[in-house]
């Protein structure tokens, strides 16, 4: 990189001095500051903010997808009535893969992003603590919105308060169901039956003896209407013969 030689002529120097004085007086009268006074002002956050994650227990089907996909390994499934996810906020990186991977929309993001915990143990949030937003203390009196254009930044201050709300986007998936692609390859291990949370897989007839000899056509599974298409059996199957298919 070549540095240009700065002109030292007195006229140029004087011009620079005048520029400095102009800029300083301009800033002293109307500063270009873009910071906000945080506890008293609150920034207006966009709709797609990744904040505190809220769980809707009635929608959760205990499919473990959130725990499987979590890149930081922050989700621990804990048991009461059924398995529900609990998030360890010491590890959570707020990628919200869990929210996006949830097939039923049980996990949802909220616009709450500034949380305080009393201890490290408290940061491991239990499923029952995730069902509603935590208690909040609001100190803000006005909200600030950033108006970013190509020309520059501008802050718009309004005396209205932002609500902390839960943004639940239900997945637009067509209903899917598990299907058995090659019934003749089935081992009859019944792991799919054990893993299914809704007891949707029923063994119609099994033509495999306990010693492993195939008699007739092998094993035939019947997948009933109870199937919600969570895909647990697909992951569990040792022969990889199960698959999800869209149904009308």
């Amino acid at each position, binding site marked *: 990189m070549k540095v240009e030689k700065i002109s030292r002529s007195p006229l140029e120097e004087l011009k620079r001095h005048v520029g*400095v*004085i102009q800029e*300083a*007086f301009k*800033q*002293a009268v109307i*500063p*270009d*500051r*873009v*910071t906000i*006074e945080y506890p008293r002002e609150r920034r207006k956050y966009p709709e797609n903010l990744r904040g505190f994650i809220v769980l809707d227990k009635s929608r959760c089907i205990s499919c473990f997808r959130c725990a499987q996909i979590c890149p930081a390994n922050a989700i621990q499934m804990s048991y009461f009535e059924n398995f529900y996810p609990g998030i360890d906020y010491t590890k959570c990186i707020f990628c919200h893969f869990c929210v996006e991977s949830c097939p039923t929309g049980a996990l949802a993001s909220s616009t709450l992003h500034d949380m305080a915990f009393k201890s490290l143990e408290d940061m491991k949030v239990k499923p029952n603590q995730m069902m509603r937003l935590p208690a909040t203390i609001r100190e803000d009196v006005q909200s600030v919105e950033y108006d970013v254009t190509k020309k520059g930044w501008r802050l718009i201050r309004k005396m209205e308060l932002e609500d902390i709300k839960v943004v639940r986007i239900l997945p637009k998936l067509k209903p899917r169901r598990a299907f058995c692609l090659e019934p003749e390859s089935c081992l009859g291990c019944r792991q799919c039956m054990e893993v299914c949370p809704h007891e949707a897989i029923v063994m119609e007839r099994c033509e495999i003896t306990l010693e492993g000899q195939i008699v007739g056509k092998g094993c035939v599974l019947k997948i009933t209407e109870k199937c919600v298409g969570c895909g647990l059996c697909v992951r569990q199957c040792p022969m990889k013969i199960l698959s999800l298919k869209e149904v009308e």
Partner: protein
Amino acid sequence: MISTLFEIFKSNMVQIPLIQPIIDYLMQIPLINFIVALILWRPFFAVVIIPGLTVLLLYLLYIVWFERKLTARVQWRVGPLEVARPIRGAIQALADGLRYFFQEAIVHKEAHRPYFIQLPILAFIPILLPIAFIPAGNVVGIKSPYAVQLVVAFLALIPITIIAIGWASNNRFAFIGSVREALIYVSYEIPFIIAVISMIYLYGSGDPYVAVEKQSIVPGAIMNPIAFLVFIIAMLMATSRLPFEIPEADQEIAFGPFVEYSGMLFGLVMVLAYEKLYVMALLFVTLFLGGWSGFYCELLGDLNAPLWLFIKTIIVISILAIVRSMYARYRIDQAVRYSFSWLIALSIVALVIGIAVGWIV
């Protein structure tokens, strides 16, 4: 004895028509009338109320906050805010002062204990004495035809106390700060004195009354702009403000000569530069901006002149405060070279202009 003193006070009181009924009422009460007469006695009023100690204190509270706030705005920060939010942290300096007052003042082992404690208080003598000589219309402490020269002489004493403070602190940073203070002292004092002498030649006298009278049509700043410029730069150097903040240099030597001070003693030495700035600005306003002359309000009577002097001083200092956020600090050799070449040359030009204009006027 008391009655003689009372008569002396009573014969030379400040006349303010606005509060005259209250004063008349208070003068009828024994003992209180003595105190009222003392406060309104012109020399006492000049030294203790305005432009003396009371407004000096108010000015200190104002300027510390104003400077921090202004610098913060230019640098895109917020500045002091949490103390008294409705007035944007305006009493921050008062809060700091109270904290200094109750904090322990530590005197470390290596310090020269008597001087270490004495000097911050001794430094106030050359700062407060000039105020007695600077007149504001009828309100004057000591009337003297050599007031300007006396003020300059007292101002020249302040750096000596600062150098002594650095010596008494017995700390490496304080030593470096003292040496730097001495270098800066040498480099600003000569142009400063020459600039003042040029104005004395211009007015033909060192008497502020003559100076203000001669500025009734054209202010001194227009009669001798070069001296005006030299005085401003010398003022920045003398009070170690930012382009020449060499002796204090926070980032390099951590407040220089005052590095070892804490508590109330630090509070005293911290405001030294601000008080020096106040005295120099008073002299500046008297010499260049028409002193106490201004719009006369009938109701305020004798208070007009001190108020105008004070308002002009505050405006000058407020404008000087912004220089802090505009320029980077000079190196020590740059500052000394600059003052010994350009500044002395400019001051000699100012002297020639002063003599020429003085001869014409």
